[in-house]
């Protein structure tokens, strides 16, 4: 998904606040394995995406990842020998042994799929909320070269998409049928496009580098044109993230957010797990709630 300036409240957050939100969600998704927590992380990200009017474009990427999720749901139950509640017992396969599908293995696959979707959603929020130029400025003072590489990498992606469409069309006009023949010949056809894209990208890279050199890049210490101001809204978002991360980590360390998939599934709803979740969800909903309030109350606008 590519950043589009829409003039939305969530797009005005300080880059550090947006990075903190994304980082916080990803950290919690990687540390915690409880399905309720993972589902909650996914929900808060979807709420932020709704505030960014990016649910539709995000849905496309979710669909793109769907095959991976489906594979996860299919393969893990078949190859994981753990779990006591057997749902299906298959034939004996050499090298793999007896195929069995257990409820626990299915549950584990669902948990991992949730984790994948939560991380993906967090990055979608980042892409929709943060102008790459602002990220560039955030790091431009201290690591200018790395920041420019980052900025160019972000610009390259849409350019590559355009190159792909153009070169594929040109090759079709030369008689290359991308949908005909065996898998090998189809792959060979796509390799032609890849070769064309590589050559075009190298030419483009050289020209951009020349333009940057002519404009004095790398000629000495840089200054920064834009400064980011830290506003109450950024403090609120950061505070929310800190509270959520603290609650999540404490819950994980204390075992409240630890979920055992094997040998039998733990009960999902337990009071000791729900209490930290009651803190984590509203804390991480701060950006979406602020966006909601921003659209409704002038008073809130004047304060944050």
């Amino acid at each position, binding site marked *: 998904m590519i950043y589009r300036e829409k003039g939305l409240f969530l797009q005005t957050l300080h880059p550090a606040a947006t990075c903190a939100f994304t980082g916080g969600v990803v950290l919690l998704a990687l540390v915690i394995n409880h399905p309720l927590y993972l589902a909650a992380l996914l929900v808060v990200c979807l709420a932020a995406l709704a505030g960014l009017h990016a649910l539709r474009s995000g849905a496309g990427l979710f669909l793109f990842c769907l095959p991976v999720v489906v594979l996860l749901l299919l393969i893990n139950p078949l190859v994981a020998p753990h779990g006591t509640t057997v749902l299906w017992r298959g034939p004996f396969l050499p090298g793999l042994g007896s195929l069995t599908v257990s409820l626990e293995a299915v549950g584990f696959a669902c948990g991992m799929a949730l984790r994948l979707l939560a991380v993906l959603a967090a990055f979608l929020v980042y892409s929709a909320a943060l102008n790459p130029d602002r990220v560039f400025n955030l790091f431009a003072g201290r690591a200018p070269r790395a920041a420019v590489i980052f900025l160019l990498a972000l610009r390259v992606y849409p350019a590559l998409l355009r190159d792909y469409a153009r070169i594929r069309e040109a090759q079709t006009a030369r*008689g290359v049928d991308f949908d005909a023949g065996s898998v090998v010949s189809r792959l060979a056809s796509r390799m032609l496009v890849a070769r064309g894209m590589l050559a075009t990208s190298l*030419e483009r890279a050289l020209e*951009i580098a020349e333009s940057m050199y002519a*404009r004095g890049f790398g000629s000495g210490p840089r200054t920064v044109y*834009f400064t980011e101001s830290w506003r109450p809204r950024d403090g609120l978002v950061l505070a929310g993230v800190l509270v959520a991360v603290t609650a999540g980590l404490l819950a994980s360390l204390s075992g409240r957010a630890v979920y055992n998939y094997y040998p039998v599934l733990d009960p999902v709803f337990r009071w000791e797990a729900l209490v930290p979740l009651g803190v984590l969800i509203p804390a991480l909903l701060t950006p979406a709630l602020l966006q909601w309030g921003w659209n409704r109350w002038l008073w809130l606008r004047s304060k944050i």
Partner: protein
Amino acid sequence: MGVESLALVEIENLNYRYPGGRGPALSGINLRVDEGEFLLVIGPSGGGKSSLGRALAGLLPRFHGGFFGGRLRCAGRDLGALQPRELARTVGIVFQDPEKQLIATTVEREVAFGLENLGLGRAEMRRRVAEVLDFLGLGHLRDSPVHTLSGGQQQKVCLAAALAMRPRVLVLDEPTSQLDPGGAEDFLHTLRRLNEELGTTIVLIEHRLERCFHLADRVVLLDGGKVLLDGPPAAVARGAVARGLPFVPAVTGVFARAGFAEPPLTVRDGRRLLRALESAPGVSPGGAGAGSGPAAPVAAVKKVWYVYPDGPEALRDCSWQVPGGRLVAVFGANGAGKSTLLKHLAGLLRPNRGTVTVLGRDTRAQNPARMARRVAFLAQNPGDYLFGDTVAGELKFSRRRLGVQPGAVEAVFRLLGLDRLRDANPRDLSVGERQLVALGALLVGGPEILLLDEPTRGLDPAWKQRLGRTLKDLQAQGKTVVVATHDIDFAAEWAEEAVVLSGGRVAGNGALPEVLEGALYYNSQVGRMFAGIAPVYTVPDAVRWLEARHRAAAAR
């Protein structure tokens, strides 16, 4: 007593060869550019123009490496001895393609990028950014994402980014080659303002001579890496015509070829001369394609509607019949639907509504890859077609894909005169050569219909002539050629029929003289000059008209 001009740039015996280059790109160049001068550099592709521009910007040999000899001084200082930061403050450069120069995502950040590199204070940066954006009329686009701007606006942003650094000299390397006529006109007008109102020293490298020849104080013609001609525009035009070189505006070329000692440089001056000759007896010109009868259509577009995903309606109730065996030009502003129409005829796009019939078959029932043997489509960027290591390899690949006899490759080599490039890497070729190789790759299949999208983009006048002759040769073989172009002069010289698209619909259609008659925007330079005087649109007709009257006037 005249005021002695100050040399801002002095070049003495400049020689340069690129790393791995077969010959020198620049050879024994001696040149000076005065403070506040507008210098136009012209010449054939590969003649050394861009290399000279890069040398002036200090990029040779610093960025590209290679073998550099001679002296290049700016404001009394050796460019090679300047620190990179000083160099960026001394010479600014704007390249051909804006998309390959833009770094940031919004206009304001893009203009500020160079200033940040110079390490300027924030207040100074803000002042310069505001100043330059307002001067170039980009203030209202300050926060706009650069990808939403038109090509002309993007190139203006690149100009703003260079100007904000306040260079002593501004070098522009074919800045309008990727722009439509409107964008190019606006951009060149801006350069004129910069030169006249701010006294900016400008070195402009251009192919669109008719739009900028008269703007220059001096013109330099480079060929083979050497200065062939150097002087005021009129003198260089006369010199070029005397040598049989096509590097003059169409208007100037017409009068020079008709034997006028002082050929005019602009349409306005040309019209004054024509008015004086109008009363003299002469002959009526034939006109391009005049007298040719109706042709049976080879393709038809009927009530076609097409909308791009997330885009505007590109074709709206569009109907047109493609006359067989003719060379047809498709005119229209950016977004008028020219490329979309051609892609429909090639089967690469399917109509949302309506039908497209090509060679008697509905394109919806055909596989576009299989259509390629009978209908060739050459898109705007020939590089998209080329991925092989040699030109011969490219053509052989097409032969295998299109399933034709081996002799087809040799026939194309002969037809296009590509023999000397047989073992060259297509990516190392000039724009014109790439265009020809890509065309060759399509011709191998022996198509009956050729569709070319902006084929003259980035071509110098000599290459345009070669392309025009090639298309005529193909037409003589019975092929139908359809060219979507902004280049009305090219179309006026080579096409017989034309169709004008506007807002996705056909706004005009017929024999070229009929379409051009009375047109202001969609008319050739010659057509504009002769408007209201005689129905003349092409250079050969204009030369005939002028010669007849010139002789009659001389006899009297």
